[in-house]
């Protein structure tokens, strides 16, 4: 009885107010547009080969095995980060952590929804803007649509996802988001010039 009562109290209490860093910030220049994307659910997923099928089924999205690739379905994207490591981003408001909790196969799923901020870089000069701080080859041959990679931008680590030929999603840690947005803003002005 006592347990039930406690649980009810917890469920009824308002959750901590979520204050998104840089919420809604945008910047437009010739050829490039930056926008801070709305909050999303995210998990860091580590799993051995034997657990991949069960996790993919529970998450409803393929866990890609090929380096630098991603898979997407119904607002949920799985990005290959390493041989046994994925970043799952859910933009449909469903919690991938809860889906993983039902899987008994060995895995580690850590909720990092609030750790990351996503910034979209779009427009014909988007690749040039990202390349001003990212040393990877972003030509369409080397980094096609759907390509995803952990890499660097200036002095910080980011996860880069190409969502279209002229669109990127830059995921960075929340505490680095001021730096990343400012860096990309300068890059945008350069790329436009």
């Amino acid at each position, binding site marked *: 009885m006592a347990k039930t009562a406690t649980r009810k109290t917890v469920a009824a209490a308002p959750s901590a107010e979520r204050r998104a860093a840089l919420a809604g910030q945008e910047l437009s220049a010739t050829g490039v547009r930056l926008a801070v994307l709305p909050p999303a659910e995210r998990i860091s997923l580590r799993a051995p080969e034997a657990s991949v099928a069960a996790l993919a089924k529970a998450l409803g999205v393929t866990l890609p095995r090929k*380096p*630098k690739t991603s898979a997407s379905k119904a607002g949920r994207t799985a990005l290959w*980060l*390493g*041989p046994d*490591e994925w970043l799952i981003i859910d933009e449909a408001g469903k919690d991938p952590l809860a889906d993983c909790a039902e899987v008994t196969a060995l895995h580690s799923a850590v909720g990092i929804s609030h750790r990351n901020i996503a910034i979209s870089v779009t427009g014909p000069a988007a690749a040039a803007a990202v390349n001003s701080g990212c*040393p*990877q080859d972003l030509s369409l041959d080397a980094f096609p649509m759907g390509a995803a*990679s*952990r*890499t*660097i931008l200036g002095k910080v*680590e980011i996860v880069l996802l190409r969502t279209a030929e002229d669109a990127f999603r830059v995921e960075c840690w929340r505490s680095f988001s001021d730096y990343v947005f400012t860096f990309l803003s300068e890059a945008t002005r350069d790329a436009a010039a």
Partner: protein
Amino acid sequence: MLLIRCPYCEEERPELEFRNAGEAHIARSADIAGESDDDFEKFFFIRSNPKGIIYERWRHMHGCARFFNAVRDTVSDKFLMTYKAGEPKPAKLPGASK
């Protein structure tokens, strides 16, 4: 900028994504407490530091984050090859004379 081939990402990536992690193939004793001071010193402090071919651990820190091994020429700074962690020291090096 150097391009380093990551054996896990299966492609060459810019050096800024990598970190050097010291000499490779240094085996830790299974009975570290039983080591003599001299043997421990050799294991812990002494490195080959050659002028020429060196076997090193590298980490694709800002990529797949995995450790791997690389063979590098310390004179030319050229990477001869890279291979996955745990794999044996390569018997033959590409382009080596012997």
